[in-house]
């Protein structure tokens, strides 16, 4: 049941003395703010934004590193009735021109009045920030940086900002930018009521709120970026609205020291966390076996695998590594989530001690007829799948074929979602919205199937390559190509393009070579890659384009961006006939 009219009313209702956010840097450096202190800082940020002309209905873009200042700017904007949007922080590896144009596109689309950067935003990164005429740049203050004390003192002379708890529930609370290259990001506009409904469903499903056996409440652990739905909704909005503490660290610190996740959970007795699938392998492989026993993960009641297709072997590896650290059976769970639905659509049953359902399907049937025929575990040629769980309350899904025909259990098709917390559309982009919301159903672009009331996610529909009716997953081709010594790891994109001469799709692959000099041997390398793909998958890589290092376009999440890379390829090779 939704108890509040908007998110700020929920923040205001939190007990002031209760710890809210702990930002963990290392053993000796961490900061905890209570709900009262968080509210105070958010009001100060609201005051600062107000003095720069921000009012209800305005949009504010924040480019700030993970931490309490970014969170208080976000909440401060909402206190004014403005809609904040957190954007990924630039880093050394993102091309400045690409970041600049992407940011300019985002701020122009949002008609953002202000772009807020942190007080330590590096000067040499300012060249990344390009603003349209209607936007202004503001350095945030947090009272600790140079000039911060004076700025906050000035603000104290104004009335502390009063929150706007009576604001309309159907007002846009914030705008979330889904993954993808910055320039192509679509702003998912979410209302207060949509977010509150999602959180109510999530809390009910995960049974959050009751006192634990030892009398404590839940405590969330997160290294997830705040511009991602897992980080923003599950690890910021959920704790804020339901008044539970969250212990957070920077994504960069985590990726450099993945073992610290275990340290933080042990120190703070965290009970809930959400992780993408890769983390279930990444952490155990970077934690020395002789150190595992010093951690105590017995407080954890759900580690939820989310945001990528869930793999049973990844979760098994994590469980095997940390069972001796007190990790209980059934703690590793799964869900299917997306920003367009605020967050979760499904969640596995956290009370089931065996965790999410695993099944094995006949591989030939799966590839040739998109049909899942369960077979015994370990059957040669079988394909394993892990369930993402059952639907949250007030959620519906349909699995449909390419022609829109409703598919039965076990048949693979596109996942459509309808719920009471679905987004209204991409901000200021009715054209994009109309393409994905049809008759109230959101067309996710994800492929999956249902079986006995549970959803299994297979992959992204638009990435799937279909050659002569055979489904080929581009990741399989890319992995084979990247194993060639001349090719850079992770720098291959495989796509399917319709070839009218063949009447079916043809594989087109773009790959970066490790060293530019290798391009002199391009023909030989292409030949070897083709041989490996054919040997591995039984298909021919029709067109291979070898490119120098840094040619592929990467998203802000560091992944190779397919659609933008395709556009670049088409510009360089106009002779190609893409349909």
């Amino acid at each position, binding site marked *: 049941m939704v108890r509040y009219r908007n998110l700020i009313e929920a923040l205001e209702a939190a007990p002031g003395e209760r710890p809210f956010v702990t930002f963990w840097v*290392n053993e000796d*450096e961490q900061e905890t703010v209570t709900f009262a202190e968080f509210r105070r800082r958010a009001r100060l940020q609201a005051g600062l934004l107000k003095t720069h002309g921000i009012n209800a209905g305005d949009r504010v873009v924040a480019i700030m590193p993970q931490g309490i200042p970014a969170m208080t700017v976000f909440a401060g904007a909402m206190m004014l009735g403005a809609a904040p949007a957190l954007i990924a922080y630039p880093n*050394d590896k993102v091309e400045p021109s690409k970041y600049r144009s992407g940011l300019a596109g985002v701020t122009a689309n949002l008609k953002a009045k202000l772009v807020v950067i942190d007080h330590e935003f590096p000067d040499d990164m300012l060249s990344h920030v390009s603003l349209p005429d209607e936007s202004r740049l503001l350095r945030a203050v947090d009272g600790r940086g140079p000039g911060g004390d004076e700025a906050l003192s000035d603000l104290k002379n104004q009335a502390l900002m009063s929150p706007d708890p009576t604001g309309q529930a159907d007002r846009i609370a914030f705008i979330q930018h889904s993954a993808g290259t910055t320039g192509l990001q679509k702003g998912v506009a979410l209302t207060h009521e949509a977010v509150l409904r999602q959180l109510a469903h999530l809390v009910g499903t995960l049974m959050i709120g009751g006192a634990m056996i030892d009398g404590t409440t839940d405590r969330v652990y997160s290294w997830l970026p705040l511009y991602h739905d897992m980080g923003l909704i599950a690890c910021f909005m959920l704790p804020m609205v339901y008044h539970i503490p969250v212990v957070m660290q920077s994504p960069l*610190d985590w*990726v450099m*020291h993945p073992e610290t996740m275990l340290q933080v959970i042990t120190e703070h007795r965290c009970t809930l966390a959400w992780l993408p699938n890769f983390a279930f392998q990444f952490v155990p492989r970077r934690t020395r076996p002789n150190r595992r026993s010093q951690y105590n993960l017995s407080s954890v009641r759900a580690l939820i695998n989310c945001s990528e297709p869930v793999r049973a072997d990844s979760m098994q590896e994590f469980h095997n590594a940390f069972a001796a650290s007190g990790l209980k059976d059934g703690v590793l769970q799964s869900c299917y989530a997306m920003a367009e639905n605020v967050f979760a659509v499904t969640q596995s049953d956290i009370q089931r001690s065996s965790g999410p359902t695993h099944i094995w399907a006949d591989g030939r049937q799966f590839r040739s007829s998109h049909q899942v025929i369960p077979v015994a575990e370990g059957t040669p040629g079988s394909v394993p799948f892990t369930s993402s769980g059952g639907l949250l309350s007030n959620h519906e899904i349909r699995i449909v074929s390419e022609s829109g025909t409703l598919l039965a259990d076990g048949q693979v098709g596109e996942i459509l979602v309808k719920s009471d917390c679905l987004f209204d559309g991409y901000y200021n982009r009715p054209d994009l919205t109309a393409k994905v919301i049809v008759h109230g159903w959101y067309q996710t672009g994800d492929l999956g199937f249902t079986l006995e009331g549970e959803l299994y996610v297979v992959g992204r529909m638009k990435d799937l390559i279909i050659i002569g009716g055979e489904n080929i997953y581009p990741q399989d081709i890319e992995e084979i190509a990247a194993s060639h010594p001349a090719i850079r790891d992770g720098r291959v994109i495989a796509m399917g393009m319709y070839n009218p001469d063949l009447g079916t799709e043809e594989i087109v692959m773009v790959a970066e070579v490790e060293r530019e000099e290798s391009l002199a041997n391009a023909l030989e390398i292409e030949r070897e890659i083709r041989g490996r793909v054919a040997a591995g998958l039984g298909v021919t890589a029709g067109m291979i384009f070898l490119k120098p290092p840094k040619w592929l376009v990467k998203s802000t999440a*560091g992944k190779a961006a397919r659609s933008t890379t395709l556009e670049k390829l088409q510009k360089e090779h106009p002779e190609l006939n893409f349909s």
Partner: protein
Amino acid sequence: MTAEEKQMIEFILRRIRKPSLIIDENTPLVSSGLVDSMALGDLVLTLEDLTHKHIPPGMAKPKDLDTVAKMFATAARVGKPQK
């Protein structure tokens, strides 16, 4: 080049599965894209093993690990005795 730096280079070449590459202690690794962010955790662990020091989180950024020489300089600057 020290023996530890040589060991680090050997580790990096194994990690990126490019044994035929030639890199030295001043070859840019992170900024050149040769080493991706997912490999940073492995570099830190190996650096801690080779220097017998603990690199506290938050004390080293990717740019501090951009070359093998910078890695060892960073360990000398921010490393703490291992517990």
